[in-house]
């Protein structure tokens, strides 16, 4: 029994405050419902806690971390160390472990903060294509979604009208057009890329990012400092903290419980949930917050974990898990890059290449009608990185190895600075039976909550897709007159390609939606088949993980689920 319980019974208790939880809180409070949000991390003040605009030399440790963490494998993947980025978390969290089955590698990024990973994510905003919802119809390798593009399109619209998305219409089937603000122009290396792509008949179009290029919904336009990953102090891009949670708090209808680690969703023994037990991390007390409905959006794997840990005589396998599908079908993104050195950029007159944090152009999948001629079934898009980036810890480490030391080192760095382009493929991985999470029977976290054990295996489809990426990127770089740079090798695949599951934080699936109650956990409105007042509103419900970054689809699904939930409540069905 919890040590205390909330006096108020909220209309909806929401677990998580990222893209999913933020959307649910925003939509439901706007409809007049009273909500509670539980977030495992702290509430922050963007102005005080965001490190946007900081320089490395503002810190005596220059971004290496006070204890030189960046030099010893800490600090995340950014190279800038955790001092600067608005990650508020990482793959490793003190006291909150996860384990890996033999032979499994998986990076599980968790941001413990109000806003979750939306505070630092890339802001890529790509809609799923019509065919992305119906993969079974195309190749029979994974199930169709129970919804179609037409079902979700109005909610992509709503999301874009709220967040603002810079981009431009291109009329490409793999990349449906949305509601766009005028995009910023391409940088020099991106113009060269567009030229090379044109010769290869590959589309390369203005990127689509949840960044506003003009004043929008009362927020000032982007000021092009290139630091989205550090959190945006002017709220000129989307994060759920500033765009959804703060406005919801201002409505007076949202109660935020931060530092609240959800342990268990409780039921009434009659197939309905009645609240959530959480650990208050500040006092280590166990508390109950009561609600008429519960929306879980802790991040795909956390959502699976919470359901699996919510066992009762009514739900002995975990909440809403009669199908046994909770934790199954975990998928993520195939992440493979090739870099090239472009001699034509040596000595180029310097200019500010920061712009948006991400590339100003990108390459949507272009071979969706040719899978019969390819040896892999699903597509990928290509992101581009380059320019005179802000020097940080590790930016020029390789020059020590190549140039030795002395004046020649400085001259080489000066000559080659800004001459590298990186093409990063982001491909669809196909869910398989070997990739899932389960509760590790031997491990609990600092709060006494059983933790996850990961199982993950790539299939030949992903290796073949990555090899296609490699060939394509080399072709593009050479077309640009570039020299292909060495890439990570030593992977188990014959080609030496290295694919690290979870490396770009797009883990989705694990509690998928579907019409078939034996094969899925929730319906097309994210409502649990077995529990009418339980909704899952994050990436957990994804049936497949198309070559689109998940955030806008999480927003749209959560919005649609919220509309449905509010309507069902109004009708008295919940």
């Amino acid at each position, binding site marked *: 029994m919890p040590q205390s319980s909330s006096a108020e019974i909220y209309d909806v208790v929401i677990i998580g405050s990222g893209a999913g939880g933020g959307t649910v809180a925003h939509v439901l409070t706007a409809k007049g419902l009273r909500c509670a949000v539980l977030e495992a991390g702290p509430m922050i003040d963007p102005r005080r806690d965001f490190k946007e605009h900081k320089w490395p030399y503002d810190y005596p440790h220059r971004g290496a971390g006070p204890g*030189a963490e960046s*030099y010893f494998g800490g600090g995340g993947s950014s190279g800038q160390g955790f001092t600067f980025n608005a990650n508020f978390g990482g793959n490793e969290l003190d006291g909150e472990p996860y384990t890996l089955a033999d032979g499994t590698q998986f990076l599980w990024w968790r941001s413990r903060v109000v806003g979750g990973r939306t505070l630092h994510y890339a802001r890529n905003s790509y809609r799923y294509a019509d065919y992305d919802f119906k993969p079974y119809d195309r190749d029979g390798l994974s199930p169709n979604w129970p919804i179609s593009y037409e079902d979700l399109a109005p909610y992509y619209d709503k999301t874009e009208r709220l967040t603002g998305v810079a981009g431009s219409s291109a009329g490409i089937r793999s990349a449906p057009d949305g509601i766009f603000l005028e995009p910023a122009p*391409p940088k020099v290396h991106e113009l060269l890329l567009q030229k090379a792509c044109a010769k290869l008949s590959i589309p390369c179009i203005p990127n689509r990012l949840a960044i506003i290029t003009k004043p929008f919904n009362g927020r000032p336009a982007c000021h092009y400092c290139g630091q989205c990953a550090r959190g945006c102090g002017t709220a000129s891009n989307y994060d759920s903290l500033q765009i959804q949670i*703060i406005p919801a708090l201002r409505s007076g209808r949202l109660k935020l419980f931060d530092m609240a680690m959800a342990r268990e969703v409780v039921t009434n023994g009659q197939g309905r949930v009645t609240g959530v037990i959480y650990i208050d991390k500040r006092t280590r007390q166990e508390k109950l917050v009561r609600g008429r409905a519960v929306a879980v959006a802790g991040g795909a794997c956390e959502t699976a974990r919470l359901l699996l840990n919510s066992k009762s005589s009514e739900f002995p396998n975990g909440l809403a898990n009669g199908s046994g599908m909770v934790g199954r079908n975990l998928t993520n993104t195939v992440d493979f890059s090739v870099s090239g050195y472009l001699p034509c950029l040596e000595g*180029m007159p310097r200019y500010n290449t920061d712009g948006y944090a991400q590339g100003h152009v990108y390459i949507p999948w272009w071979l969706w009608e040719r899978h019969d001629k390819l040896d892999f079934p699903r597509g990928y898009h290509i992101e581009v990185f380059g320019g005179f980036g802000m020097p940080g810890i590790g930016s*020029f480490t390789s020059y020590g190895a190549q140039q030795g030391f002395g004046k020649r080192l400085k001259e080489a760095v*000066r000559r080659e600075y800004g001459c590298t382009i990186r093409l990063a493929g982001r491909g669809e991985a196909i869910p398989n039976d070997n990739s899932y999470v389960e509760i590790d029977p031997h491990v609990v976290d600092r709060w006494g909550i059983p933790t996850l054990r990961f199982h993950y295996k790539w299939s030949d489809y992903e290796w073949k897709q990555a090899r296609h990426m490699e060939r394509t990127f080399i072709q593009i770089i050479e077309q640009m007159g570039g020299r292909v740079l060495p890439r990570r090798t030593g992977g188990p695949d014959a080609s030496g390609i290295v694919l690290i599951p979870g490396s770009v934080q797009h883990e989705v699936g694990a509690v998928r939606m579907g019409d078939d109650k034996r094969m899925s956990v929730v319906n097309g409105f994210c409502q649990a088949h077995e529990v009418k007042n339980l909704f899952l509103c994050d990436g957990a419900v994804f049936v497949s993980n198309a070559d689109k970054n998940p955030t806008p689809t999480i927003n749209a699904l959560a919005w649609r689920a919220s509309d449905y939930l509010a309507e069902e409540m109004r009708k008295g069905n919940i």
Partner: protein
Amino acid sequence: MIPVQIGDFSRRELLKRVAMAVVAMEAIPLADAQEVHSHAIQEKSRTGAYKPKLFNKHEYETITRLAELIVPADQVSGSAVDAGAPEFIDLLASHNEKLADICTGGIGWIDTFARTLYQTTFVEARAERQIALLEQLVRARTQSEGSGSGPREPRNPGAREAINLSPGVTFFNWISRMAIDAFYTSPIGMKDLGYMGNSATSAYSVPQESIDYAFKRSPFS
């Protein structure tokens, strides 16, 4: 690019104003945003000489000399020492025991090696001898990288293989990496590279001059 305007507000007031505007979701004047950018730089002050937290005088001198040799001053910019590398290395090593051992152990090794070669410590050796010693480490690094696993055959059979240089290579890699980082993350290093970002601008544009320069030299000319 909009120039910095300080206006009638003190910086503290400006920061407060921007913070309030953000929470209130109001539009923020661009000049204010730019002012916040530069705030951090201007608040920084350098007062007095740095007192090493970990290294003794000899160790600090050795680190300083190494940093100067790795990134020396040239006609464009100052050295890693001018950019604060010794303070940076000392500070990090004082907060990380592993790094402290790498540094003090490495200094001990390099002094032993210098005594073997020149009968002096590293810092006491003449400049050309210091450089020759480091060149030896660089060569050893290149050889070990090229030889893969298994027993290492010296490329040059005449080279003196009596001393195993690996500990020195490891140490030099560490100091080199940190000296390079300290230099390029400093205002001196940023200026050397001509980095122009991390600033607020009202509209993003790419100069035609840069486009023309790159295209003329590209396969698309």
